[in-house]
């Protein structure tokens, strides 16, 4: 029986559970002996002219070796926008020189012998800022009255698409429009950002940093520091979560490398959480307007989504994410007319990057809320409206009005499975009873049906590199360009190799995140790893078998065609003649047994599913509690159910978190008010139920494993299902819409307003 599809426990865990993983701040590498500690001095003002930075007192403080300001980094070219379509004037200085653009903008760096000395000395750097008006929110940004980059002439970083034609909704019996907020949230990987750098006498720099793709980060370092990438050895040690916020190098990381050269000593940096919550990329932050039109029989004829993306101060990945939102705007439905348009806007806040789902949860949230609004308007069950408009099951590629090509899907089956597992009819009956009785705790039932894009080209193509070597002692090594940070690739890639070679999983080592050993790689993001990186390992194992076959045929003096893989032997045997084989290890002893390959997927894949969520809402306090979450997530063939389920669970929690609780907030002056975990309501165990998972697997033809991505399904499906459930719980009281997060205060006020109060 194949090991694929079985619940193999992780090979990573014994070390993680007994000694702990080795994160960047845990490193004790000899090259970092005597490293200085970097502490950033950051702007405490959202927007202003930087008048002066006085470092004299800090330089006198104990343990201070250097205090670096903009003048010292004048030889570094300001960082250009990461995309060609962004206004070119929106460059990012390495350290603020004449202007600060968000609370957290780096102004100076203090280098000290010891860590605590850095915090002491940083407070002694005197910064004088003449405040300018803050730009908080997309409306203020779009007004273009206060500009972050006056030389750009606008706060608009980029625009995508055109307005809908004036007659777009003509002929619709019912048209519903609703502005909605897909709020700014903080990714909060438990490991904050950290980096370390040391230069060798050979002119090369070794950089360690916590990141989702060493190779991509190395390329950025090279571009920014004007260095040959071959002179940069970038290592991502164990990484304590990323969720998209560790995609791409942060300027701080490259600055640590520059500082190490500047002072001629190794330098390390580890931010604390309050620095992380203002300095690390945030996610989502879209203001949307949805308009949906159709007939009273439930047929939807036209759908429009208009997005204003808050990008924060400096352009990062968030600037381009509205294009993914637009691409996925039609979702699982076959609407005849779909329109989407977006603007990306600069505000005096922390920059926006990718956060689990990255553009697709925003599309699904808008669409699935729109369906519920339409259903409420015509008085039809939301499940029925969905069924009426879902694309029929398809096994040949389907091209959408927005230009995506879905590989395959059966959305009705997914919805039906989820509703059946939930016991939908009985839930509605229970809801009716509670409404009839006027219970304080009302029941809400929400659902979503989603399709998402995974394995999209992230700039490194739709492929991945892998190499596989069997050693004479019977062990094997896999080198992969993916970058696991909790996903379990060490186990999963070993399973794939083991399945074809018969070498036990425990004897296969997976190496990643080291650009000297793995120069090529696309990292782990966009739910690409298994369908591209795993597929590359699968391809490598197949190629290794063929290489071994030729060598074994010579060694055994038989026809290669007569040799078959003997998994028990971990080698090749002559067909029909037991005991005649040769092991891969024996062949490796004769001559290095190594293959290097690259797998390229023909196209991205489109996982899909349906979620049903049950909430209880206390109508007197407004508090919502999720009591059940039932999820169908079809990601094609599952390699290791234990790992796939873990990915789903984590996504559901983040979906519930966004729908119910979490939001990054700024006051009108641009001061962050959620910059510690005491203020930012990170979801805890008490706010979640145990989840109910329903299996469905439609293999994709895009790779030999049949695998689609699973990493982001949870946030995409769960978020709107929870939001819909909360609104459904109070819909009978006249509530039509509540923006996320559906906090007790928001729910309470919505009920009060619907009942005619204030």
């Amino acid at each position, binding site marked *: 029986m194949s090991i694929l599809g079985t619940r193999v*426990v*992780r090979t*990573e*865990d*014994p070390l*993680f*559970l*007994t*000694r*702990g*993983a*080795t*994160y960047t701040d*845990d490193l*004790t590498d000899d090259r970092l002996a005597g490293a200085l500690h970097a502490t950033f001095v950051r702007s405490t003002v959202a927007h202003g002219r930087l008048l002066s930075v006085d470092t004299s007192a800090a330089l006198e403080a104990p343990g201070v070796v250097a205090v670096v300001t903009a003048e010292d980094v004048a030889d570094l070219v300001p960082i250009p926008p990461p995309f060609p379509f962004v206004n070119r004037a929106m460059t990012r200085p390495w350290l603020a020189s004449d202007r600060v653009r968000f609370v957290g903008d780096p102004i100076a760096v203090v280098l000290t012998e010891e*860590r*605590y000395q850095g915090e002491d000395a940083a407070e002694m750097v005197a910064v004088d800022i003449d405040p300018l008006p803050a730009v908080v929110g997309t409306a203020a940004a779009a007004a273009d009255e206060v500009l972050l980059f006056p030389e750009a002439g606008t706060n608009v970083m980029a625009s995508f698409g055109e307005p809908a034609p004036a007659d777009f909704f003509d002929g619709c019996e019912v048209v519903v429009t609703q502005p909605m907020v897909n709020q700014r949230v903080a*990714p*909060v*990987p*438990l*490991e*904050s950002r950290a980096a370390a750098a040391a230069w060798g006498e050979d002119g090369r720099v070794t950089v360690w940093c916590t990141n989702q793709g060493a190779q991509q980060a190395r390329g950025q370092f090279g571009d920014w520091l004007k260095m040959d990438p071959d002179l940069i050895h970038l290592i991502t040690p*164990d*990484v*304590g*979560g990323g*969720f998209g916020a560790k995609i791409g190098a942060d300027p701080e990381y490259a600055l640590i490398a520059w500082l190490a050269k500047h002072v001629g000593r190794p330098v390390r940096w580890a931010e*604390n*959480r*309050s620095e992380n919550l203002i300095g690390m990329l945030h996610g989502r932050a879209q203001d949307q307007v949805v308009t949906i039109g159709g007939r009273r029989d439930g047929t939807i004829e036209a759908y429009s989504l208009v997005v204003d993306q808050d990008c924060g101060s400096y352009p990062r990945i968030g600037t381009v994410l509205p294009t993914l939102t637009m691409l996925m705007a039609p979702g699982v439905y076959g609407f005849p007319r779909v329109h989407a348009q977006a603007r990306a806007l600069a505000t005096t806040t922390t920059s926006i990057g990718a956060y689990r789902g990255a553009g697709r949860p925003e599309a699904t949230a808008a669409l699935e809320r729109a369906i519920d609004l339409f259903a409420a308007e015509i008085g039809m069950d939301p499940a029925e409206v969905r069924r009426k408009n879902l694309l029929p099951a398809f096994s040949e590629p389907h091209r959408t009005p927005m230009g995506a090509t879905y590989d395959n899907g059966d959305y009705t089956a997914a919805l039906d499975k989820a509703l059946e597992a939930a016991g939908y009819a009985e839930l509605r009956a229970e809801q009716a009873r509670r409404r009839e009785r006027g219970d304080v705790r009302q029941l809400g039932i929400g659902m979503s049906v989603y399709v998402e894009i995974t394995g999209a080209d992230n700039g490194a193509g739709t492929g991945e590199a892998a190499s596989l070597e069997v050693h004479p002692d019977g062990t094997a090594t896999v080198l992969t360009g993916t970058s696991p*940070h*909790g*996903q*379990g690739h060490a186990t999963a890639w070993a399973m794939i190799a083991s399945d074809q070679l018969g070498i036990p999983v425990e004897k296969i080592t997976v190496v990643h995140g080291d650009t000297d050993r793995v120069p090529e790689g696309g990292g782990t993001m966009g739910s690409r790893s298994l369908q591209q990186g795993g597929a590359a390992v699968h391809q490598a194992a197949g190629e290794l078998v063929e290489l071994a076959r030729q060598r074994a045929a010579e060694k055994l003096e038989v026809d290669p065609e007569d040799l078959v893989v003997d998994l028990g032997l971990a080698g090749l045997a002559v067909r029909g003649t037991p005991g005649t084989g040769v092991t891969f290890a024996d062949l490796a002893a004769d001559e290095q047994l190594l293959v290097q390959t690259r797998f390229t997927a023909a196209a991205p894949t489109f996982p899909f599913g349906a979620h049903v969520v049950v909430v209880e809402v206390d109508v007197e306090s407004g508090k919502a509690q999720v009591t059940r979450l039932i999820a169908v997530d079809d990601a094609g063939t599952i390699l290791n159910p*234990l*790992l796939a*389920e*873990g990915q789903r*669970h*984590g*996504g*559901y*929690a*983040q979906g519930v978190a966004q729908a119910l609780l979490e939001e990054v907030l700024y006051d009108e002056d641009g001061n962050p008010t959620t910059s*510690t*975990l*005491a203020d930012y309501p*990170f979801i*805890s*165990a*008490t706010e*979640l139920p*145990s*989840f109910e998972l329903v299996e469905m697997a439609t293999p994709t033809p895009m790779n030999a494993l049949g695998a689609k991505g699973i990493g982001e399904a*949870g946030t995409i499906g769960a978020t709107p299902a929870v939001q819909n459930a909360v609104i459904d719980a109070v819909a009978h009281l006249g509530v039509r819409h509540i923006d996320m997060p559906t906090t007790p205060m928001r729910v309470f006020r919505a009920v009060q307003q619907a009942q005619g109060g204030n």
Partner: protein
Amino acid sequence: MQISITVNGQQRTDEVEPRLLLAHYLREVCGLKATNLGCDTTSCGACTVIVDGLSVKSCTVLAAQTDGAQVTTLEGLTGPDGEMHPVQKAFREEHGLQCGFCTPGMVMAAIGVLADNPDPTDREIREGLEGNLCRCTGYHNIVRAVQSAAGAGPAAGQVPQAQEVAR
């Protein structure tokens, strides 16, 4: 100032700054890096260790305050023969960890929960671990791991060196 602390069964004496946090003492002075820091506000629990039988967040305790105390970290849970603690085993079997950053604190907190209540319900586990944050697992498999560890009996709520654990 000078402090004497028994860390994972070994007594040691160190000269420390009075303001040194226990978490930094364990990491930087003792070289025990399993204990992680995930916040500055006693919110996340990644730094949870056991001090004289109590599970505490070591970012909120000064090393000086533990002078004379017995401290157990994740590294101190494994027996001399390499045998994992029942809670460690259960976390592996139930896939109760992904990136691993919250794990050392989560394991120590789970031991505290089981010391307090050897047979907790799903809800009691969730309430017991409310002060320990995880971004990867959605807590689903952590709750299952604690339930599974409870099945191992009283050892699941104890740390080596026969220290009594209570919350």
